[in-house]
């Protein structure tokens, strides 16, 4: 490995009362890869994502992103550095159309939210960029529909479009396949496969078909600890992982 990792997490600890949701997690994400993070429910995957994004603060440990220690920065600052995320439960501006949701991300990327006068809806640059993102995730036809009126699956797609629009240097995807139908999952898998060339992906997912199809590396988190990291084949064969997580699905 000549290049240094895009995202590097060292010895992260986070406790809730007696519960250690992150118990010394060390993990990295290298450019061009899909690194899948799997593990039983409640293992601490989302908590880890939260800490990387800054919505929760770690008790100890460090987070480096793009060569910078981001462990103390606010959520918005980290996002501006290029951390793009999707939420486990869709989180959108419900009254805004799909298009305006994406436009918000485009303007955020440009860092231009303190422009008070020019009407956004006449801002071709903004609109065109946002539309392109919707097209990429296959939502172009639903551009004018308010987010609240999209179906569950469509909202998941919109989340991805927003992360794309941010021009992120790394993607943190928390269960992007959840709620996607079989067809949707298949399409998204194909899509993520191309996305990795734009920016590496840390993928939390319970859909093993997708994980096995995409992941370059897999880390397994159990009770806040990484019990194994390896290639798809290594993980599939790991007996500890099978009992803790995969069951017969291997």
């Amino acid at each position, binding site marked *: 490995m000549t290049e240094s990792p895009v995202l590097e997490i060292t010895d992260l600890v986070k406790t809730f009362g007696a519960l250690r949701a992150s118990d010394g997690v060390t993990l990295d994400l290298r450019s061009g890869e899909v690194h899948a993070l*799997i593990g039983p429910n409640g*293992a601490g995957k989302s908590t880890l994502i939260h800490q990387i994004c800054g919505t929760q603060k770690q008790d100890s440990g460090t987070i480096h992103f793009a060569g910078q220690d981001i462990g103390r920065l606010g959520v918005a600052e980290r996002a501006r550095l290029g951390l793009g995320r999707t939420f486990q439960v869709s989180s959108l501006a419900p009254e805004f159309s799909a298009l305006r949701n994406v436009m918000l991300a485009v303007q955020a990327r440009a860092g231009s939210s303190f422009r008070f006068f020019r009407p956004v809806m006449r801002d071709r640059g903004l609109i065109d960029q946002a539309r392109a993102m919707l097209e990429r995730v296959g939502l172009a036809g639903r551009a004018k529909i308010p987010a609240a009126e999209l179906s569950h699956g469509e909202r998941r797609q919109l989340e991805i479009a927003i992360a794309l629009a941010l021009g992120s240097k790394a993607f943190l995807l928390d269960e992007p396949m959840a709620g996607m139908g079989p067809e949707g999952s298949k399409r998204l898998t194909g899509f993520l496969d191309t996305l990795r060339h734009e920016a590496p992906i840390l993928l939390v997912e*319970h859909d093993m078909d997708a994980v096995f199809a995409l992941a370059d590396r897999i880390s397994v988190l159990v009770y806040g600890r990484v019990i194994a990291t390896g290639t798809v084949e290594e993980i599939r064969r790991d007996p500890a992982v099978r009992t803790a997580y995969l069951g017969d699905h291997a």
Partner: protein
Amino acid sequence: MLLEVQDITTFYGSSQALFGVDLSVAEGEVVALMGRNGMGKSTTIKSICNLMPPKSGHIAFAGQATAKLPPHKVARLGLGLVPEGRRCFQNLTVHENLVAAARPGAWTLKRVNDLFPRLDERHAQMARSLSGGEQQMLAIGRALMTNPRLLILDEATEGLAPVIRQDIWRAIRSLKEDGLSILVIDKTLSELLPMADRCVILENGRSVWSGQPQALTSDLQDRYLGI
């Protein structure tokens, strides 16, 4: 028939989501409701529970028309709902979530806790701080606590780890053996199909196909489900 849905149409405000859905679930039957994203599966379920009352068509549960009943009366006829997105009561603890919904019957706190030991471990925790999968378990447990005759699962195993998913399917199988009827939406066809007695497929707000899972050829799957 325990549940009978005939030709319902449903609107969100002025936009129509269902254009004629037919569906039925017999006593002790497991019916899988399928279709691509946005085809109207969840809307159908909301209509059945009268949360989104249909504009036309007919729904009857256990022989009783539900059209005029408020949602809580419909539920008390014996519907147990696990909604899309879980919708746990965020400001209640796990324990309280379960107790708030309880109605007398075979399903008790103990039995739910046995089914999902994780819920027992977290019984005093606020629902809002549960992990995604834990919330899904809670939503299922909560529906069971109402001791329903028909369990409706919208995205039954969304967000659950494979081992847990297997537990859930096992549980559903045993529920079925106990005689519970189940209407289920789930995307993992490989696990769903072996369970189901019958499948109903929705496309663009219409029920377009219904039959036994064995009859669901890959041709049909390709056409309606995109696989």
